[in-house]
């Protein structure tokens, strides 16, 4: 249900010749600019809101400072590393567990209810518990991100493998493929689009969870920690820079994923995938 409705108007796909006119791109800038101007005016006027609003000039200066001091790059690197750990550990575990549940009815029966019970609690809700258990180091944060990356992949791998058409499996059997060949030539490729969708969700959830744990733990390094420290110190400029980078990185990660996943999905008929 987290189908990404990509930017721009939906008709772009059905009419390849139709392109969004330049003008409309400019129109899209009007509102953000208005907000920026209003923001800047409020900040300059000071008064009651001076604390919450920071001028554009101040924001630019803070950006240069945080980059020059190496602080921002360090936080970004920490967060990205955390997401990488979460995706590789949680993703692998998720695919393995999902596959085991799809292929073995017993594993499905035993693990299914546990999975769904744990799934009911929002990822960030586990933070106080993990904080008590593992203290304030990197381990509880990484565990949360691993959990966030794992859960969508369990579900999508499971659904993908369960959804393999019996007709395709029959063809494999007619060609006398053994169970291993049947898995790698038929079941896995058939489930791949679903698994990739799961990976995309895992990426998004891992990023959200990463920022979330860093904010909620509020200590150590990472963009979330930078935002939270900024809030505690009343530094709106630092908070804003953090928020902007969270958004930019989320966007870049999604783009990168789509780029990398596209070759694996070349066979899909657009009409069918809808």
């Amino acid at each position, binding site marked *: 249900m987290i189908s990404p409705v990509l930017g721009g108007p939906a008709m772009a796909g059905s009419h390849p010749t139709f392109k969004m006119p330049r003008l409309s791109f400019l129109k899209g800038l009007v509102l953000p600019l208005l907000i920026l101007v209003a923001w800047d005016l409020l900040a300059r006027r000071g008064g009651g809101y001076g604390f919450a609003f920071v001028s554009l000039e101040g924001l630019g200066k803070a950006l240069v400072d945080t980059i020059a001091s190496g602080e921002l790059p360090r936080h970004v690197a920490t967060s990205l590393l955390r997401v990488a750990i979460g995706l590789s550990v949680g993703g692998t575990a998720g695919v393995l567990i999902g596959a085991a549940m799809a292929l073995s009815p017993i594993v499905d029966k035993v693990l299914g209810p546990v999975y769904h019970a744990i799934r009911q609690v929002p990822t960030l809700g586990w933070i106080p518990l993990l904080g008590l258990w593992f203290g304030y180091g990197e381990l509880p944060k990484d565990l949360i991100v691993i959990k966030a990356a794992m859960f969508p992949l369990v579900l999508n791998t499971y659904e993908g493998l369960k959804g393999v058409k019996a*007709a*395709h499996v*029959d*063809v494999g*059997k*007619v*060609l*006398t*493929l*053994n169970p291993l*060949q049947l898995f790698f*030539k*038929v079941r896995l*490729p*058939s489930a*791949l689009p679903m698994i990739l969708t799961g990976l995309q969700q895992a990426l998004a959830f891992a990023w959200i969870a990463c920022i979330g744990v860093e904010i909620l733990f509020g200590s150590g390094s990472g963009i979330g920690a930078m935002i939270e420290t900024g809030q505690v110190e009343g530094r709106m400029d630092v908070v804003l820079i953090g928020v902007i980078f969270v958004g930019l990185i989320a966007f870049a990660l999604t783009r990168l994923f789509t780029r990398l996943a596209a070759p694996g999905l*070349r*066979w*899909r*008929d657009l*009409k*069918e995938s809808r």
Partner: protein
Amino acid sequence: MSRTRPEFEPITAGRSGALAIRAVGKTHHIDGQPLEVLRDVSLDIGPGEFVSIVGASGCGKSTLLRLIVGLDNDYQGEIRLDDRRILSTSLDRGIVFQDHRLFPWMTVEENVAVALDRRPLGREAKKKLVAESLALVNLSGFEGAYPHQLSGGMAQRAAIARALINEPKVLLLDEPFGALDALTRLKLQTELQALRRRNQGTMLMVTHDVEEALYLADRVVIMQGGPGRIARIVPVPFPHPRDRGSAAFARLKDEILAELMREPELGSAQVTILSQDRRR
């Protein structure tokens, strides 16, 4: 896998297979309710023969093909190919389904090559075989296409190439042209007839198109539903290429159609059950 002496001497000349279907019965269980789909079906098909089974949908003809190809071995009676009991799938038998069932994630070439997965052949040999079999069905030049890029007729040709590449002793065709438009169907029927002249394999085709059966087959088996059984076997005496417009052809077609229409409960087994209820 007992090797008892057959009643007739099997002529396993080249790659043709003799198919012996003996007193085959099959019952499906739907929600615990038994539904008899085949009863006491017996049929002998000689090596190199082309037999066509016609009958209304639900008469169990596709089920029979599933049993012969080896996807289902839970049935009564026995099915033997060259005197070997059929227990599972084997490269001896190829099948073409109504829906082409190409794997959408593989190109045409890969789809045909996957049929060679279990054969101990070198990469080059496999490549050569794939190219040959694609040429046989006039698909050269489409090796790299994905199934969704093909028309229905082309996809079905690729499916035929996949089924023929192992030179099976028996080729089973389950309404292979049923989903195609009329013109493509005629074209593929002619191509199949041409293929048959080159390939010595035995063929068994299920169809509901009586004309198609008469155009291609040496014998036409008429099946009736509820439960599926053989009503009549009609030899087709015309030499190839056959003339669909000839008076004799039309007469035989009318005769078979009349046979098919005769039974009032020709439809599915359910229709039979309903009419039995009414009689009560």
